[in-house]
Protein backbone atom coordinates (compact mmCIF):
# COMPACT_ATOMS: atom_id res chain seq x y z
CA UNK A 1 0.00 0.00 0.00
CA UNK A 2 2.79 2.30 0.93
CA UNK A 3 4.55 1.46 -2.29
CA UNK A 4 1.44 2.31 -4.28
CA UNK A 5 1.13 5.64 -2.54
CA UNK A 6 4.76 6.28 -3.22
CA UNK A 7 4.35 5.50 -6.91
CA UNK A 8 1.37 7.79 -7.14
CA UNK A 9 3.16 10.67 -5.46
CA UNK A 10 6.24 10.12 -7.56
CA UNK A 11 3.95 10.09 -10.56
CA UNK A 12 2.45 13.41 -9.52
CA UNK A 13 5.93 14.88 -9.29
CA UNK A 14 6.75 13.77 -12.82
CA UNK A 15 3.27 14.85 -13.81
CA UNK A 16 4.16 18.36 -12.75
CA UNK A 17 6.86 18.44 -15.40
CA UNK A 18 4.54 17.06 -18.06
CA UNK A 19 1.84 19.49 -17.01
CA UNK A 20 4.04 22.51 -17.49
CA UNK A 21 5.22 21.33 -20.90
CA UNK A 22 1.62 20.59 -21.85
CA UNK A 23 0.67 24.06 -20.73
CA UNK A 24 3.20 25.65 -23.05
CA UNK A 25 1.93 23.45 -25.89
CA UNK A 26 -1.64 24.51 -25.21
CA UNK A 27 -0.62 28.15 -25.15
CA UNK A 28 0.92 27.93 -28.57
CA UNK A 29 -2.05 26.02 -29.83
CA UNK A 30 -4.49 28.52 -28.42
CA UNK A 31 -2.66 31.42 -30.02
CA UNK A 32 -1.66 29.89 -33.32
CA UNK A 33 -3.44 26.57 -33.83
CA UNK A 34 -0.10 24.91 -34.37
CA UNK A 35 1.57 22.17 -32.40
CA UNK A 36 5.06 23.22 -31.47
CA UNK A 37 7.27 20.18 -31.81
CA UNK A 38 10.24 22.24 -30.76
CA UNK A 39 8.70 23.15 -27.40
CA UNK A 40 10.95 20.86 -25.41
CA UNK A 41 14.09 22.16 -27.05
CA UNK A 42 13.07 25.77 -26.51
CA UNK A 43 12.56 25.03 -22.83
CA UNK A 44 15.92 23.27 -22.65
CA UNK A 45 17.69 26.14 -24.37
CA UNK A 46 16.14 28.65 -21.98
CA UNK A 47 17.25 26.55 -19.05
CA UNK A 48 20.81 26.61 -20.35
CA UNK A 49 20.55 30.38 -20.52
CA UNK A 50 19.51 30.40 -16.88
CA UNK A 51 22.38 28.08 -16.04
CA UNK A 52 24.83 30.42 -17.74
CA UNK A 53 23.55 33.32 -15.64
CA UNK A 54 23.69 31.36 -12.39
CA UNK A 55 27.13 30.06 -13.24
CA UNK A 56 28.24 33.66 -13.73
CA UNK A 57 27.06 34.51 -10.23
CA UNK A 58 23.58 35.91 -10.73
CA UNK A 59 21.34 34.94 -7.78
CA UNK A 60 18.65 32.35 -8.52
CA UNK A 61 15.53 34.51 -8.68
CA UNK A 62 17.32 37.16 -10.69
CA UNK A 63 18.36 34.54 -13.19
CA UNK A 64 14.85 33.08 -13.11
CA UNK A 65 13.14 36.28 -14.17
CA UNK A 66 15.82 37.28 -16.63
CA UNK A 67 15.39 33.90 -18.27
CA UNK A 68 11.65 34.38 -18.50
CA UNK A 69 12.27 37.66 -20.31
CA UNK A 70 14.85 36.04 -22.56
CA UNK A 71 12.50 33.18 -23.40
CA UNK A 72 9.69 35.58 -24.16
CA UNK A 73 11.98 37.41 -26.54
CA UNK A 74 13.18 34.16 -28.07
CA UNK A 75 9.60 33.06 -28.68
CA UNK A 76 8.69 36.34 -30.33
CA UNK A 77 11.84 36.21 -32.43
CA UNK A 78 11.12 32.68 -33.59
CA UNK A 79 7.59 33.59 -34.58
CA UNK A 80 8.54 36.73 -36.43
CA UNK A 81 11.64 35.50 -38.19
CA UNK A 82 11.21 31.80 -38.75
CA UNK A 83 7.50 31.15 -38.78
CA UNK A 84 6.21 34.30 -40.45
CA UNK A 85 7.49 33.32 -43.91
CA UNK A 86 5.67 29.99 -43.80
CA UNK A 87 2.53 31.38 -42.21
CA UNK A 88 0.36 30.51 -45.17
CA UNK A 89 2.17 27.38 -46.16
CA UNK A 90 0.54 24.00 -45.85
CA UNK A 91 0.65 22.28 -42.48
CA UNK A 92 3.42 20.00 -43.67
CA UNK A 93 5.84 22.83 -44.31
CA UNK A 94 5.19 24.24 -40.89
CA UNK A 95 5.80 20.86 -39.30
CA UNK A 96 9.13 20.61 -41.08
CA UNK A 97 10.12 24.08 -39.94
CA UNK A 98 9.36 23.07 -36.36
CA UNK A 99 11.47 20.00 -36.77
CA UNK A 100 14.29 22.04 -38.24
CA UNK A 101 14.07 24.32 -35.22
CA UNK A 102 14.12 21.33 -32.87
CA UNK A 103 17.24 19.97 -34.48
CA UNK A 104 19.03 23.31 -34.56
CA UNK A 105 18.36 24.14 -30.91
CA UNK A 106 19.41 20.69 -29.76
CA UNK A 107 22.60 20.75 -31.78
CA UNK A 108 23.50 24.30 -30.75
CA UNK A 109 23.03 23.50 -27.08
CA UNK A 110 25.26 20.47 -27.44
CA UNK A 111 27.91 22.48 -29.22
CA UNK A 112 27.95 25.37 -26.81
CA UNK A 113 27.52 23.51 -23.55
CA UNK A 114 28.74 19.98 -24.32
CA UNK A 115 26.72 16.91 -23.50
CA UNK A 116 27.87 16.40 -19.95
CA UNK A 117 25.08 16.75 -17.47
CA UNK A 118 25.00 19.85 -15.33
CA UNK A 119 23.25 20.28 -12.06
CA UNK A 120 20.74 23.06 -11.76
CA UNK A 121 19.83 24.57 -8.41
CA UNK A 122 16.41 24.45 -6.88
CA UNK A 123 14.87 27.49 -5.16
CA UNK A 124 13.20 25.25 -2.62
CA UNK A 125 15.42 24.48 0.38
CA UNK A 126 16.37 20.90 0.97
CA UNK A 127 14.94 20.74 4.44
CA UNK A 128 11.68 22.57 3.89
CA UNK A 129 8.70 21.53 5.97
CA UNK A 130 6.69 20.37 2.99
CA UNK A 131 9.22 17.78 1.95
CA UNK A 132 9.03 14.14 2.91
CA UNK A 133 10.43 10.79 1.97
CA UNK A 134 7.75 10.55 -0.68
CA UNK A 135 8.31 13.86 -2.40
CA UNK A 136 11.29 16.10 -2.09
CA UNK A 137 10.69 19.79 -1.32
CA UNK A 138 11.54 20.64 -4.87
CA UNK A 139 9.01 18.24 -6.31
CA UNK A 140 6.30 19.73 -4.11
CA UNK A 141 7.39 23.23 -4.98
CA UNK A 142 7.41 22.36 -8.65
CA UNK A 143 3.78 21.32 -8.56
CA UNK A 144 2.97 24.53 -6.75
CA UNK A 145 4.71 26.62 -9.37
CA UNK A 146 2.97 24.74 -12.17
CA UNK A 147 -0.43 25.42 -10.64
CA UNK A 148 0.47 29.09 -10.10
CA UNK A 149 1.51 29.50 -13.73
CA UNK A 150 -1.63 27.71 -14.78
CA UNK A 151 -3.76 30.12 -12.81
CA UNK A 152 -1.97 33.11 -14.29
CA UNK A 153 -2.41 31.78 -17.81
CA UNK A 154 -6.08 31.09 -17.26
CA UNK A 155 -6.72 34.51 -15.79
CA UNK A 156 -4.80 36.12 -18.60
CA UNK A 157 -6.72 34.46 -21.39
CA UNK A 158 -10.08 34.74 -19.74
CA UNK A 159 -10.10 38.12 -18.13
CA UNK A 160 -7.68 40.41 -19.87
CA UNK A 161 -8.41 42.27 -23.11
CA UNK A 162 -5.08 41.14 -24.53
CA UNK A 163 -5.91 37.54 -23.78
CA UNK A 164 -9.26 37.91 -25.49
CA UNK A 165 -7.64 39.53 -28.49
CA UNK A 166 -5.18 36.65 -28.75
CA UNK A 167 -7.86 34.03 -28.62
CA UNK A 168 -9.83 35.89 -31.26
CA UNK A 169 -6.79 36.18 -33.48
CA UNK A 170 -6.21 32.44 -33.31
CA UNK A 171 -9.78 31.42 -33.93
CA UNK A 172 -10.72 33.86 -36.59
CA UNK A 173 -7.88 35.95 -37.93
CA UNK A 174 -9.93 37.53 -40.68
CA UNK A 175 -12.67 38.85 -38.45
CA UNK A 176 -10.13 39.86 -35.85
CA UNK A 177 -8.35 42.04 -38.32
CA UNK A 178 -11.64 43.65 -39.18
CA UNK A 179 -12.13 44.72 -35.59
CA UNK A 180 -8.66 46.16 -35.42
CA UNK A 181 -6.65 43.40 -33.75
CA UNK A 182 -3.04 43.28 -34.87
CA UNK A 183 -3.13 39.57 -35.65
CA UNK A 184 0.54 39.33 -36.47
CA UNK A 185 1.60 40.68 -33.10
CA UNK A 186 -0.94 38.52 -31.30
CA UNK A 187 0.73 35.45 -32.73
CA UNK A 188 4.13 36.73 -31.77
CA UNK A 189 3.07 37.45 -28.20
CA UNK A 190 1.46 34.04 -28.03
CA UNK A 191 4.76 32.48 -28.91
CA UNK A 192 6.58 34.70 -26.48
CA UNK A 193 4.31 33.65 -23.65
CA UNK A 194 4.62 30.01 -24.57
CA UNK A 195 8.38 30.40 -24.59
CA UNK A 196 8.23 31.95 -21.15
CA UNK A 197 5.98 29.21 -19.76
CA UNK A 198 8.26 26.63 -21.34
CA UNK A 199 11.29 28.16 -19.69
CA UNK A 200 9.61 27.88 -16.30
CA UNK A 201 8.92 24.25 -17.07
CA UNK A 202 12.56 23.72 -17.95
CA UNK A 203 13.90 25.46 -14.87
CA UNK A 204 11.60 23.46 -12.65
CA UNK A 205 12.42 20.19 -14.35
CA UNK A 206 16.18 20.60 -14.51
CA UNK A 207 16.94 19.98 -10.81
CA UNK A 208 15.09 16.66 -11.10
CA UNK A 209 16.05 15.58 -14.60
CA UNK A 210 19.55 17.11 -14.70
CA UNK A 211 20.42 19.51 -17.44
CA UNK A 212 21.74 18.17 -20.71
CA UNK A 213 20.76 18.86 -24.32
CA UNK A 214 18.54 15.79 -24.41
CA UNK A 215 16.78 16.60 -21.16
CA UNK A 216 13.40 17.29 -22.71
CA UNK A 217 13.27 14.76 -25.52
CA UNK A 218 11.78 12.11 -23.29
CA UNK A 219 9.43 14.54 -21.63
CA UNK A 220 7.95 16.01 -24.80
CA UNK A 221 6.10 12.87 -25.82
CA UNK A 222 4.44 12.64 -22.43
CA UNK A 223 3.71 16.36 -22.65
CA UNK A 224 1.89 15.77 -25.94
CA UNK A 225 -0.02 12.89 -24.44
CA UNK A 226 -0.98 15.09 -21.53
CA UNK A 227 -2.09 17.99 -23.71
CA UNK A 228 -4.19 15.69 -25.89
CA UNK A 229 -5.68 13.89 -22.95
CA UNK A 230 -6.72 17.08 -21.27
CA UNK A 231 -7.81 18.88 -24.39
CA UNK A 232 -5.39 20.75 -26.59
CA UNK A 233 -7.23 24.00 -26.19
CA UNK A 234 -7.78 23.93 -22.47
CA UNK A 235 -5.00 24.94 -20.05
CA UNK A 236 -6.65 23.34 -17.01
CA UNK A 237 -7.17 20.19 -18.98
CA UNK A 238 -3.57 20.14 -20.07
CA UNK A 239 -2.29 20.44 -16.53
CA UNK A 240 -4.72 17.84 -15.28
CA UNK A 241 -3.73 15.64 -18.18
CA UNK A 242 -0.11 16.02 -17.17
CA UNK A 243 -0.72 14.72 -13.69
CA UNK A 244 -2.84 11.86 -14.95
CA UNK A 245 -0.19 10.85 -17.46
CA UNK A 246 2.51 11.01 -14.81
CA UNK A 247 0.63 8.76 -12.42
CA UNK A 248 -0.52 6.37 -15.14
CA UNK A 249 3.01 6.04 -16.43
CA UNK A 250 4.28 5.05 -13.01
CA UNK A 251 1.45 2.68 -12.19
CA UNK A 252 1.63 1.03 -15.60
CA UNK A 253 5.37 0.72 -15.34
CA UNK A 254 5.37 -0.64 -11.82
CA UNK A 255 2.36 -2.91 -11.83
CA UNK A 256 0.90 -3.49 -15.25
CA UNK A 257 3.21 -3.79 -18.24
CA UNK A 258 6.60 -3.38 -16.65
CA UNK A 259 9.09 -0.65 -17.27
CA UNK A 260 10.03 -1.99 -20.67
CA UNK A 261 6.88 -0.74 -22.30
CA UNK A 262 6.33 2.63 -20.69
CA UNK A 263 6.66 4.55 -23.94
CA UNK A 264 4.13 2.21 -25.47
CA UNK A 265 1.77 3.25 -22.70
CA UNK A 266 2.15 6.87 -23.83
CA UNK A 267 1.49 5.76 -27.38
CA UNK A 268 -1.62 3.89 -26.38
CA UNK A 269 -2.88 6.85 -24.37
CA UNK A 270 -2.41 9.17 -27.30
CA UNK A 271 -4.07 6.89 -29.81
CA UNK A 272 -6.79 5.92 -27.41
CA UNK A 273 -7.69 9.51 -26.62
CA UNK A 274 -7.59 10.51 -30.25
CA UNK A 275 -9.95 7.73 -31.22
CA UNK A 276 -12.38 7.85 -28.38
CA UNK A 277 -12.49 11.52 -27.57
CA UNK A 278 -10.25 13.65 -29.79
CA UNK A 279 -11.12 16.81 -27.98
CA UNK A 280 -9.69 15.38 -24.81
CA UNK A 281 -11.34 15.17 -21.45
CA UNK A 282 -12.00 18.85 -21.14
CA UNK A 283 -11.65 20.30 -24.57
CA UNK A 284 -14.39 21.68 -26.70
CA UNK A 285 -15.72 19.56 -29.50
CA UNK A 286 -15.24 21.18 -32.86
CA UNK A 287 -18.03 20.76 -35.31
CA UNK A 288 -17.06 21.00 -38.90
CA UNK A 289 -19.42 23.07 -40.94
CA UNK A 290 -19.96 22.10 -44.51
Amino acid at each position, binding site marked *: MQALLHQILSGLANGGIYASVALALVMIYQSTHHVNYAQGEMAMFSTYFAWTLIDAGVPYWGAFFLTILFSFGLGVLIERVILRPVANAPVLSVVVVFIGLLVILN*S*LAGWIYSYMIKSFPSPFPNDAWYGSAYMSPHEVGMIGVTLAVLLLVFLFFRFTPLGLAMRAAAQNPVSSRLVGIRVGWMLAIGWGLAGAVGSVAGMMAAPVLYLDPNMMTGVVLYGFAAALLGGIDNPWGAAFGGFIVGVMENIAGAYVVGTEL*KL*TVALVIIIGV*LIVKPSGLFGRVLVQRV
Partner: protein
Amino acid sequence: MATIDQAASARTGIGVPARHRFGLALLLLAACALPFVLSSYQTFQATMVLVYAIALLGLNILTGFNGQISLGHGAFYAIGAYTAAILIDQSLVPYWATVPIAGFVCLVIGFLFGLPATRLTGLYLALATFALAVATPQILKYHGIEKWTGGSQGIILDKPAAPTFLPLTSDQWLYFVCLIVTVPMFVIGRNLLHGRTGRALVAIRDHPIAAASMGIDTSFYKSMSFGVSALYTGIAGALGAFVAGFVSPDSFMIFLSITLLVGMLVGGVGSIAGAFFGAVFIEFVPNLADQISKAAPWAIYGVFLIGFMYLMPSGVAGLIRYWTSRLKL
Protein backbone atom coordinates in the same frame (compact mmCIF):
# COMPACT_ATOMS: atom_id res chain seq x y z
CA MET B 1 -15.21 7.15 -79.82
CA ALA B 2 -11.58 6.22 -80.16
CA THR B 3 -10.44 9.79 -80.41
CA ILE B 4 -12.47 10.80 -77.36
CA ASP B 5 -10.91 8.01 -75.34
CA GLN B 6 -7.47 8.99 -76.53
CA ALA B 7 -8.11 12.58 -75.67
CA ALA B 8 -9.45 11.62 -72.28
CA SER B 9 -6.46 9.47 -71.43
CA ALA B 10 -4.07 12.19 -72.56
CA ARG B 11 -5.79 14.68 -70.27
CA THR B 12 -5.80 12.39 -67.28
CA GLY B 13 -2.26 11.35 -68.03
CA ILE B 14 -2.44 7.58 -67.93
CA GLY B 15 -0.44 7.36 -71.10
CA VAL B 16 3.15 8.54 -71.01
CA PRO B 17 4.12 10.91 -73.80
CA ALA B 18 6.63 9.42 -76.21
CA ARG B 19 9.44 11.82 -75.42
CA HIS B 20 9.11 11.05 -71.74
CA ARG B 21 9.22 7.35 -72.45
CA PHE B 22 12.47 7.79 -74.33
CA GLY B 23 13.94 9.78 -71.46
CA LEU B 24 12.88 7.17 -68.93
CA ALA B 25 14.40 4.38 -71.01
CA LEU B 26 17.68 6.27 -71.12
CA LEU B 27 17.55 6.73 -67.37
CA LEU B 28 16.95 3.04 -66.86
CA LEU B 29 19.89 2.18 -69.06
CA ALA B 30 22.10 4.56 -67.12
CA ALA B 31 20.89 3.06 -63.86
CA CYS B 32 21.84 -0.42 -65.07
CA ALA B 33 25.29 0.76 -66.05
CA LEU B 34 26.03 2.49 -62.75
CA PRO B 35 27.37 -0.44 -60.68
CA PHE B 36 29.99 -1.16 -63.31
CA VAL B 37 31.22 2.38 -63.32
CA LEU B 38 31.14 3.16 -59.63
CA SER B 39 33.29 1.78 -56.85
CA SER B 40 31.91 -0.77 -54.45
CA TYR B 41 31.24 1.85 -51.81
CA GLN B 42 29.51 4.18 -54.25
CA THR B 43 27.37 1.30 -55.53
CA PHE B 44 26.38 0.70 -51.92
CA GLN B 45 25.38 4.36 -51.64
CA ALA B 46 23.43 4.18 -54.90
CA THR B 47 21.60 1.12 -53.59
CA MET B 48 20.61 3.06 -50.49
CA VAL B 49 19.27 5.82 -52.75
CA LEU B 50 17.00 3.27 -54.42
CA VAL B 51 15.85 1.94 -51.06
CA TYR B 52 15.06 5.40 -49.76
CA ALA B 53 13.28 6.26 -53.00
CA ILE B 54 10.84 3.38 -52.48
CA ALA B 55 10.28 4.42 -48.87
CA LEU B 56 9.72 8.02 -49.89
CA LEU B 57 7.24 7.05 -52.58
CA GLY B 58 5.39 5.16 -49.89
CA LEU B 59 5.32 8.18 -47.62
CA ASN B 60 4.31 10.39 -50.53
CA ILE B 61 1.31 8.20 -51.30
CA LEU B 62 0.02 8.76 -47.81
CA THR B 63 1.11 12.27 -47.04
CA GLY B 64 1.65 13.86 -50.42
CA PHE B 65 -1.31 12.51 -52.34
CA ASN B 66 -3.71 11.68 -49.57
CA GLY B 67 -2.80 14.45 -47.18
CA GLN B 68 -2.45 12.30 -44.08
CA ILE B 69 0.62 13.47 -42.22
CA SER B 70 2.79 10.70 -40.93
CA LEU B 71 5.69 11.38 -38.64
CA GLY B 72 6.10 7.69 -37.95
CA HIS B 73 6.99 5.98 -41.18
CA GLY B 74 10.21 4.83 -39.62
CA ALA B 75 8.05 2.33 -37.76
CA PHE B 76 6.90 0.67 -40.99
CA TYR B 77 10.44 0.70 -42.31
CA ALA B 78 11.51 -1.04 -39.10
CA ILE B 79 8.73 -3.62 -39.32
CA GLY B 80 9.71 -4.43 -42.89
CA ALA B 81 13.36 -4.68 -41.97
CA TYR B 82 12.75 -6.90 -38.95
CA THR B 83 10.33 -9.14 -40.84
CA ALA B 84 12.98 -9.79 -43.45
CA ALA B 85 15.70 -10.24 -40.82
CA ILE B 86 13.71 -12.65 -38.67
CA LEU B 87 12.67 -14.73 -41.68
CA ILE B 88 16.26 -15.03 -42.83
CA ASP B 89 17.62 -15.56 -39.35
CA GLN B 90 15.19 -18.40 -38.72
CA SER B 91 15.94 -19.72 -42.20
CA LEU B 92 12.32 -19.84 -43.10
CA VAL B 93 12.44 -18.50 -46.65
CA PRO B 94 15.07 -17.55 -49.22
CA TYR B 95 16.06 -13.91 -49.13
CA TRP B 96 14.17 -12.77 -52.19
CA ALA B 97 10.92 -14.06 -50.74
CA THR B 98 11.32 -11.98 -47.60
CA VAL B 99 10.71 -8.77 -49.51
CA PRO B 100 7.13 -9.44 -50.62
CA ILE B 101 6.34 -11.02 -47.26
CA ALA B 102 7.64 -7.94 -45.47
CA GLY B 103 5.54 -5.82 -47.79
CA PHE B 104 2.43 -7.84 -47.08
CA VAL B 105 2.95 -7.74 -43.32
CA CYS B 106 3.29 -3.97 -43.49
CA LEU B 107 0.24 -3.69 -45.73
CA VAL B 108 -1.85 -5.41 -43.09
CA ILE B 109 -0.39 -3.49 -40.16
CA GLY B 110 -0.62 -0.21 -42.06
CA PHE B 111 -4.22 -0.83 -42.95
CA LEU B 112 -5.06 -1.74 -39.35
CA PHE B 113 -3.35 1.40 -38.10
CA GLY B 114 -5.12 3.39 -40.78
CA LEU B 115 -8.58 2.25 -39.70
CA PRO B 116 -8.76 4.21 -36.45
CA ALA B 117 -6.55 6.88 -37.95
CA THR B 118 -9.29 7.88 -40.39
CA ARG B 119 -10.87 9.74 -37.54
CA LEU B 120 -7.76 11.82 -37.01
CA THR B 121 -6.77 14.80 -39.04
CA GLY B 122 -3.76 16.97 -39.53
CA LEU B 123 -1.81 17.51 -36.41
CA TYR B 124 -3.61 14.86 -34.40
CA LEU B 125 -2.57 12.20 -36.84
CA ALA B 126 0.91 13.65 -36.87
CA LEU B 127 1.02 13.27 -33.11
CA ALA B 128 -0.26 9.71 -33.17
CA THR B 129 2.31 8.69 -35.75
CA PHE B 130 5.00 10.57 -33.85
CA ALA B 131 4.15 8.52 -30.76
CA LEU B 132 4.31 5.35 -32.85
CA ALA B 133 7.79 6.22 -34.05
CA VAL B 134 9.07 7.00 -30.57
CA ALA B 135 7.63 3.82 -29.10
CA THR B 136 8.88 1.50 -31.87
CA PRO B 137 12.45 0.98 -30.64
CA GLN B 138 11.17 0.10 -27.20
CA ILE B 139 8.70 -2.39 -28.61
CA LEU B 140 11.47 -3.96 -30.66
CA LYS B 141 13.55 -4.43 -27.55
CA TYR B 142 10.78 -6.10 -25.61
CA HIS B 143 12.11 -9.19 -23.96
CA GLY B 144 8.94 -11.10 -24.67
CA ILE B 145 9.83 -11.28 -28.35
CA GLU B 146 13.57 -11.22 -27.82
CA LYS B 147 13.95 -14.77 -29.03
CA TRP B 148 13.11 -13.65 -32.54
CA THR B 149 14.17 -10.05 -32.63
CA GLY B 150 17.49 -10.47 -30.88
CA GLY B 151 16.53 -7.76 -28.38
CA SER B 152 18.89 -4.85 -28.21
CA GLN B 153 21.63 -6.93 -29.83
CA GLY B 154 19.75 -7.04 -33.09
CA ILE B 155 20.21 -9.50 -35.91
CA ILE B 156 23.16 -9.77 -38.27
CA LEU B 157 22.27 -10.63 -41.86
CA ASP B 158 24.43 -12.20 -44.48
CA LYS B 159 24.62 -10.24 -47.68
CA PRO B 160 22.94 -12.22 -50.44
CA ALA B 161 25.48 -13.34 -53.00
CA ALA B 162 24.92 -13.20 -56.73
CA PRO B 163 23.88 -16.44 -58.39
CA THR B 164 26.95 -18.32 -59.58
CA PHE B 165 26.31 -17.89 -63.27
CA LEU B 166 26.55 -14.09 -62.98
CA PRO B 167 29.96 -12.46 -62.55
CA LEU B 168 28.73 -9.84 -60.12
CA THR B 169 30.01 -8.81 -56.73
CA SER B 170 27.66 -8.92 -53.79
CA ASP B 171 27.27 -5.14 -53.87
CA GLN B 172 26.45 -5.08 -57.56
CA TRP B 173 23.99 -7.94 -57.21
CA LEU B 174 22.23 -6.22 -54.34
CA TYR B 175 22.00 -3.04 -56.41
CA PHE B 176 20.29 -4.94 -59.21
CA VAL B 177 17.95 -6.68 -56.80
CA CYS B 178 16.89 -3.28 -55.50
CA LEU B 179 16.59 -1.93 -59.03
CA ILE B 180 14.43 -4.89 -60.03
CA VAL B 181 12.14 -4.07 -57.13
CA THR B 182 12.22 -0.29 -57.59
CA VAL B 183 11.18 -0.11 -61.22
CA PRO B 184 7.93 -2.09 -61.03
CA MET B 185 7.01 -0.45 -57.75
CA PHE B 186 7.34 2.96 -59.31
CA VAL B 187 5.45 1.92 -62.44
CA ILE B 188 2.62 0.52 -60.35
CA GLY B 189 2.70 3.54 -58.11
CA ARG B 190 2.53 5.89 -61.03
CA ASN B 191 -0.39 4.10 -62.61
CA LEU B 192 -2.17 4.01 -59.31
CA LEU B 193 -1.63 7.66 -58.58
CA HIS B 194 -2.39 8.99 -62.03
CA GLY B 195 -5.54 6.98 -62.35
CA ARG B 196 -8.87 6.91 -60.59
CA THR B 197 -7.41 5.90 -57.25
CA GLY B 198 -4.97 8.75 -57.32
CA ARG B 199 -7.67 11.24 -58.13
CA ALA B 200 -9.77 9.91 -55.26
CA LEU B 201 -6.82 10.28 -52.90
CA VAL B 202 -6.16 13.83 -54.01
CA ALA B 203 -9.82 14.70 -53.75
CA ILE B 204 -9.89 13.41 -50.19
CA ARG B 205 -6.81 15.47 -49.43
CA ASP B 206 -8.07 18.73 -50.87
CA HIS B 207 -11.80 18.63 -50.24
CA PRO B 208 -12.73 15.75 -47.98
CA ILE B 209 -16.32 16.79 -47.53
CA ALA B 210 -16.91 17.32 -51.22
CA ALA B 211 -15.26 14.00 -51.96
CA ALA B 212 -17.49 12.21 -49.48
CA SER B 213 -20.58 13.80 -50.90
CA MET B 214 -19.55 12.66 -54.37
CA GLY B 215 -19.66 9.07 -53.22
CA ILE B 216 -16.01 8.36 -52.63
CA ASP B 217 -15.63 5.96 -49.73
CA THR B 218 -13.22 8.14 -47.79
CA SER B 219 -12.65 5.74 -44.91
CA PHE B 220 -11.73 2.91 -47.21
CA TYR B 221 -9.40 5.00 -49.33
CA LYS B 222 -7.73 6.53 -46.32
CA SER B 223 -7.10 3.19 -44.66
CA MET B 224 -6.02 1.66 -47.95
CA SER B 225 -3.57 4.45 -48.59
CA PHE B 226 -2.12 3.85 -45.15
CA GLY B 227 -1.78 0.19 -46.00
CA VAL B 228 -0.22 0.72 -49.41
CA SER B 229 2.07 3.40 -48.07
CA ALA B 230 3.21 1.02 -45.34
CA LEU B 231 3.69 -1.70 -47.95
CA TYR B 232 6.08 0.44 -49.93
CA THR B 233 8.00 1.57 -46.90
CA GLY B 234 8.11 -1.97 -45.52
CA ILE B 235 9.59 -3.28 -48.74
CA ALA B 236 12.16 -0.52 -48.59
CA GLY B 237 12.94 -1.55 -45.02
CA ALA B 238 13.45 -5.17 -46.00
CA LEU B 239 15.82 -4.21 -48.79
CA GLY B 240 17.57 -1.75 -46.52
CA ALA B 241 18.15 -4.51 -43.99
CA PHE B 242 20.07 -6.51 -46.56
CA VAL B 243 22.09 -3.54 -47.68
CA ALA B 244 23.14 -2.66 -44.14
CA GLY B 245 23.52 -6.28 -43.12
CA PHE B 246 22.26 -5.56 -39.63
CA VAL B 247 19.06 -4.62 -37.82
CA SER B 248 18.77 -3.39 -34.27
CA PRO B 249 16.33 -1.19 -32.37
CA ASP B 250 18.87 1.62 -32.46
CA SER B 251 18.70 1.61 -36.26
CA PHE B 252 15.11 2.83 -36.22
CA MET B 253 14.90 5.73 -33.82
CA ILE B 254 12.63 8.75 -34.30
CA PHE B 255 15.26 10.43 -36.46
CA LEU B 256 14.57 7.92 -39.21
CA SER B 257 10.94 9.04 -39.44
CA ILE B 258 12.02 12.65 -39.45
CA THR B 259 14.57 11.90 -42.15
CA LEU B 260 11.92 10.29 -44.34
CA LEU B 261 9.61 13.27 -43.90
CA VAL B 262 12.43 15.62 -44.79
CA GLY B 263 13.27 13.57 -47.86
CA MET B 264 9.71 13.69 -49.09
CA LEU B 265 9.47 17.43 -48.61
CA VAL B 266 12.78 18.20 -50.23
CA GLY B 267 12.03 15.95 -53.16
CA GLY B 268 8.59 17.36 -53.68
CA VAL B 269 5.30 16.56 -52.02
CA GLY B 270 2.89 14.85 -54.38
CA SER B 271 5.60 14.14 -56.89
CA ILE B 272 6.71 10.66 -57.89
CA ALA B 273 10.03 11.75 -59.35
CA GLY B 274 10.53 13.73 -56.18
CA ALA B 275 11.08 10.46 -54.34
CA PHE B 276 14.42 10.09 -56.10
CA PHE B 277 15.53 13.65 -55.46
CA GLY B 278 14.59 13.29 -51.83
CA ALA B 279 16.46 10.00 -51.57
CA VAL B 280 19.59 11.60 -52.94
CA PHE B 281 19.22 14.41 -50.42
CA ILE B 282 18.84 12.04 -47.48
CA GLU B 283 21.76 9.92 -48.52
CA PHE B 284 24.32 12.60 -49.27
CA VAL B 285 23.48 15.82 -47.44
CA PRO B 286 24.14 14.58 -43.87
CA ASN B 287 27.68 13.76 -44.93
CA LEU B 288 27.91 17.21 -46.42
CA ALA B 289 26.67 18.79 -43.22
CA ASP B 290 29.18 16.67 -41.33
CA GLN B 291 31.98 18.13 -43.39
CA ILE B 292 30.78 21.67 -42.91
CA SER B 293 30.62 21.44 -39.17
CA LYS B 294 31.87 18.57 -37.08
CA ALA B 295 30.61 20.27 -33.97
CA ALA B 296 26.99 20.80 -34.82
CA PRO B 297 26.14 18.84 -37.97
CA TRP B 298 22.45 18.64 -37.18
CA ALA B 299 22.28 22.39 -36.79
CA ILE B 300 23.48 22.70 -40.39
CA TYR B 301 20.96 20.06 -41.39
CA GLY B 302 18.20 22.02 -39.66
CA VAL B 303 19.25 25.17 -41.50
CA PHE B 304 19.11 23.25 -44.80
CA LEU B 305 15.61 22.10 -43.89
CA ILE B 306 14.25 25.51 -43.08
CA GLY B 307 15.99 26.99 -46.09
CA PHE B 308 14.35 24.43 -48.36
CA MET B 309 10.95 25.24 -46.94
CA TYR B 310 11.42 28.90 -47.67
CA LEU B 311 13.03 28.68 -51.05
CA MET B 312 11.60 25.51 -52.49
CA PRO B 313 8.34 24.69 -50.77
CA SER B 314 7.34 22.32 -53.53
CA GLY B 315 10.66 20.59 -53.39
CA VAL B 316 13.19 19.88 -56.06
CA ALA B 317 10.56 18.31 -58.27
CA GLY B 318 8.49 21.44 -58.03
CA LEU B 319 11.46 23.54 -59.00
CA ILE B 320 12.15 21.36 -62.02
CA ARG B 321 8.51 21.48 -63.03
CA TYR B 322 8.60 25.25 -62.77
CA TRP B 323 11.68 25.59 -64.93
CA THR B 324 10.57 23.05 -67.53
CA SER B 325 7.27 24.84 -67.90
CA ARG B 326 9.02 28.19 -68.13
CA LEU B 327 11.35 26.92 -70.80
CA LYS B 328 8.50 25.00 -72.44
CA LEU B 329 10.43 21.75 -72.58
